């Protein structure tokens, strides 16, 4: 399903190419125009736009960026090394801290990889609850992004709305798992516990509130003229560049690639039981990336609603030995996390712990495009582009 197949999309694809050419032209102009004395601008490590401690060093010519490079490592915790001295069940408490706004979603692909190696499948009820909690962490994560987006552009109100409504979701996650930020709820073979009584009804009420929140943000922020002029046509990423940098999630779909790991792979989660739309946008600019995330939050509330209606009964834990030894082998599992594709390449040697775990986090790839993307942009646009790429430092540094 490429976007260039039908005539309407072909026109839009053309438009995307034109804006790409325009950004390349801005690049070229830098070289011909009268050169002024360069200046190095340091952004961060502490900056509200960085969701952690990312430092960006930008070399400026006038108001345009000639060269920019993020400097990572202020939060490197060496999780890949640490997993090698942990047992499989212990690893979840570490990887919870990778993307700390959507913690539960980090646990799922690792547990699925371990289950794949063990040839175990969680019971249906556990799979459904996993999917519900997965989507709830997406909502908690992305709603904060939507609120924070306003702050980057000088609008204070949206962030209060976001914190207000994210709290409802965090309360739900807390009442089901016991942890607001780091649930550590997923187990090999299922879940630690079943849902508490009354949780399903409560969740439905909250999903309605979240849909209202999305409407509020859409009218307040996305309809705002300043917001549009700050984001439309800014930071355009063409389809092929997005692919070769390994961008994923909303960033990739905003560049017109119709690919969602929830829909496009067979994975033991309940996504094939629900009906949802995968949104794409042909523009590839900052606005498209933000807009896709807004639509996805809305879509996630609908997924949760459908799952709540059809949740099967039964146990939430498969029969798994008390002391878990994972058979020898290699497995790769990735899922569509709030920030994009998150995957684990797990190598096991039939031991209590993994031999090697490669953590493929979405933000690392998403942010690796910045040296290419920031060239030629104006200084204020650095902030909006970084905000629209949406990264979390724990997810870059791991």
């Amino acid at each position: 399903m490429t976007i260039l197949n039908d005539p309407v999309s072909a026109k839009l694809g053309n438009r995307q190419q034109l804006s790409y050419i325009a950004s390349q032209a801005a690049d070229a102009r830098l070289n011909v125009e009268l050169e002024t004395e360069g200046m190095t601008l340091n952004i961060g490590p502490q900056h509200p736009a960085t969701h952690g401690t990312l430092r960006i060093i930008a070399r400026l010519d006038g108001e345009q960026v000639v060269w920019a490079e993020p400097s990572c490592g202020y939060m490197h915790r060496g999780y890949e090394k640490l997993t090698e001295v942990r047992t499989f069940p212990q690893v979840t408490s570490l990887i919870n801290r990778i993307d700390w706004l959507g913690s539960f979603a980090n646990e799922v692909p690792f547990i699925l990889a371990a289950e794949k190696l063990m040839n175990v499948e969680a019971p249906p009820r556990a799979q459904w609850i996993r999917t519900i909690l997965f989507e709830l962490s997406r909502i908690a994560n992305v709603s904060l992004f939507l609120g924070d987006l306003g702050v980057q552009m000088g609008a204070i109100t949206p962030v209060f709305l976001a914190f207000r409504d994210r709290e409802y979701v965090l309360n739900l996650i807390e009442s089901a798992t016991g942890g607001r930020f780091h649930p550590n709820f997923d187990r090999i073979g299922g879940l630690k516990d079943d849902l508490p009584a009354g949780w399903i009804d409560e969740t439905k009420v909250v999903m309605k509130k979240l849909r209202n929140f999305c409407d509020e943000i859409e009218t307040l922020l996305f309809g705002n003229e300043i917001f549009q002029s700050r984001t439309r046509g800014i930071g355009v990423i063409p389809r092929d560049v997005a692919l070769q940098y390994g961008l994923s999630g909303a960033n990739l779909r905003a560049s017109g690639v119709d690919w969602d790991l929830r829909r496009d792979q067979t994975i033991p989660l309940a996504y094939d039981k629900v009906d949802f739309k995968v949104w794409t946008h042909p523009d590839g600019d900052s606005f498209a990336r933000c807009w896709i995330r807004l639509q996805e939050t809305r879509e996630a509330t609908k997924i949760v609603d459908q799952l709540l209606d059809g949740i099967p009964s039964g146990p939430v834990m498969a029969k798994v030995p008390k002391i878990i030894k994972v058979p020898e082998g290699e497995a790769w599992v990735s899922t569509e996390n709030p920030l994009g594709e998150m995957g684990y390449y797990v190598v096991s040697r039939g031991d209590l712990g993994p031999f090697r775990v490669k953590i493929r986090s979405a933000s690392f790839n998403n942010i690796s495009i910045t040296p290419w993307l920031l060239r030629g942009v104006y200084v204020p646009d650095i902030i909006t582009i970084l905000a629209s790429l949406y990264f979390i430092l724990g997810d870059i540094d791991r």
Partner: protein
Amino acid sequence: MHLQKPKGEVNQLSSPAETAAPIVDTARDAMVAAIRTTLGAAVVDTLVKPGDDIWVRVMTESWCASIQALKEAHAFDYFCFLSAIDWMPSPYGRGEDDPSEPAPVRDTAIRPGYTGGDTRMQMLVRLVNSVTHLGINIKADVPNDSFTIDSICTVFAGANWHEREAHEMFGIGFAGHPDLRNMYLPVDFEGYPMRKDFPLLARMVKPWPGIVDVEPLPGSGADEEKDGSSEEGAS
């Protein structure tokens, strides 16, 4: 809810269909056959796990060319990740040794994973076709003497940061990489932390608290004896 089976038995809870008849994965088998034709002698070994994934190991010399060919001929246009694996088992085990006692001798013989391997370090790249969503894991040996392999930055620009990470963590050199600065570690850091013979220092200076905190499992003889003796002592 827990297992009633005797110890050591691997549980098979998955659907009976999986164990009854082997799944035939025509799409992946066809893809591997096509890759073998495209790459020819560059392919060392392949592995298909039906319904799961593909592994292809290529010659070290044709690392970059193979990936380029896969990108162009088979449209593996999505760069997922690049990393390395150190196949030498760690001489420190899982870091649970008591530092006050002499270190136990461990078997550090190199045993490679899927599709084999002749060297200690192996490269691992995952690419995906963005239309069919078929993924592929590509491996290549990294020579033991030089620890150097060609950079694939020219094929996938996104590999730049991944190669920098592999360089500082595993000490692998990438010929043709524009800028192999450290990503995470300080400039003057010595050693390569992700190599298996790099000790996890936190576990070296202080014993892992898990060693002393472990409660003996009920039913183990030592535990009961100890309890009994302490009771006697108290009375």
